[in-house]
């Protein structure tokens, strides 16, 4: 709980600091919203050419977009700051985070917190609410619970991907861009029904890098679709377990990475 208090303090300071440069803040907030809108525009452009994609209608893909977008956005605002680790390692300032009586991860994500990233959550939230209202979902308590659980689990899965891929920079600082393939690439992959991906990519996203659990499997269950992976429908409820496993893996990798850290001399 003490950690939470410190986090709130640091984040508060950060928000006040950003607020000093208001024009820049709003431009940045706008650009984050535009990023989210462009992702949606790509979907809209594709659906201007076809009515269904891999058997999914526009509104059904919007549901995927909403779940994946909100989960991605929440992870983006809370934990994506971990990707700045490479910059701090290069500059030698990462040592600072190790010296404080606070988890380096919590400290880093609080120090680099940016309220503008809210732009990444708000727009997918609107899409998600719209899709939940309009999609042909046969509502019951289980399905309503599944929406909440899958968004939160998705946040944890994306967050874990961010932590694991950013840990690479403890071994090689120049390879930061590999992380983008998994984080932003993961965001892109989960926006679409994974049936359209090649079999090999689909297997990787189900069993190795469990992004199919973020939006695809829960959405398929909500819509009452057959799980095309040949898995029983109830597998959608494995999402929180997958999230838990991801967090544990991320934790282990991060701890290992920190232990591997060697400060730059100058």
């Amino acid at each position, binding site marked *: 709980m003490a950690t939470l208090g410190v986090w709130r303090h640091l984040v508060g300071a950060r928000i006040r600091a950003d607020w000093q440069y208001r024009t820049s803040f709003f431009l940045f907030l706008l650009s984050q919203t*535009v990023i989210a809108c462009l992702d949606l525009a790509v979907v809209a452009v594709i659906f201007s050419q076809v009515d269904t994609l891999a058997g999914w209608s526009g509104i059904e893909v919007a549901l995927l977009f909403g779940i994946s977008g909100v989960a991605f956005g929440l992870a983006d605002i809370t934990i994506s700051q971990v990707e700045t680790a490479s910059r701090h390692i290069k500059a030698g300032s990462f040592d600072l985070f190790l010296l404080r009586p606070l988890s380096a991860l919590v400290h880093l994500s609080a120090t680099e917190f940016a309220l503008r990233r809210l732009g990444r959550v708000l727009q997918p939230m609107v899409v998600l609410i719209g899709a939940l209202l309009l999609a042909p979902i046969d509502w019951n308590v289980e399905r309503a619970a599944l929406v909440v659980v899958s968004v939160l689990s998705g946040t944890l899965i994306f967050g874990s991907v961010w932590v694991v891929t950013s840990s690479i920079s403890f071994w090689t600082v120049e390879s930061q861009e590999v992380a983008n393939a998994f984080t932003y690439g993961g965001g892109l992959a989960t926006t679409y029904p994974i049936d359209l991906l090649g079999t090999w990519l689909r297997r990787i996203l189900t069993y190795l890098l469990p992004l199919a659990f973020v939006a695809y499997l829960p959405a398929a269950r909500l819509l009452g679709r057959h799980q095309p992976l040949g898995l029983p429908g109830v597998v959608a409820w494995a999402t929180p377990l997958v999230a838990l496993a991801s967090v544990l893996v991320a934790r282990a990798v991060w701890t290992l990475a920190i232990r591997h850290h060697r400060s730059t001399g100058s």
Partner: protein
Amino acid sequence: MQARLYVEVARRTYARISVYRSATVAGIFTNTVFGFLLAYVLLAVYEQRPEVGGFDAVDVVTFTFVAQGMLMVLGMFNDTEIADRISTGDVIVELQRPYDHQAWWAGVSYGKAGYYAIFRGIPPFLAGALVFDLRLPSVQGAVAFVLSVVLAVGVAFGWRYLLQLTAFWLLDVRGANQLGWLAAQFLSGAFVPLVFFPGWLEAIARALPFAAMLQLPVEVWLGRYDGIGLLGVYALQAGWMATLVVAGRCAMARAVRRVVVQGG
């Protein structure tokens, strides 16, 4: 004639960035992953129809991998190299030196483009060719493409220079810069080829300079222009390059007259 100086700037920039080998490998990996994801998404459209706006399935997959290879060549991301010098006030030193500020940075852009064309442009395409059927241009087509890319780099540079000069007026240029490149990426067809856009949006996109950065060169690769049509593409690209470069010079002239630079 100072042209030799700017060529030397380009050469040195090439040498400078070629040191970061693992960054190059990492970037290739990322471009390749995005190439595959976008290719599969667009291919799903072709399960229902044989062509979109004159592009068949092979065209669109080829487009995706060529486009991924061109992103770094064009430098379509938020670098703030020019703006940083403005924000810190170091630009004053640059402006006092006996060379042209804009031409110097154009040299930097072309140096990077040369390196990235070879090391970031070709590998994602080869990776894509392992899995998909991709279209290769004829020898003449390849030459036509290279020329079109050279012009496209100039158009992208003109846009980059303009965007970063906003640092004279804004304290933090990153938001404006990011917005500018997002618009450029989307409207140049970097995510989805412009032929997928609804008619009205495609018309708007083609009337803007961004199509000259990516959509047009890749269409040249796909062999969609010859003779007069190809000359028309070059003329359009050169026109946009000239327009943006002149706009950049005007903005700079204005900034020099009106703006107080940060001192230190």
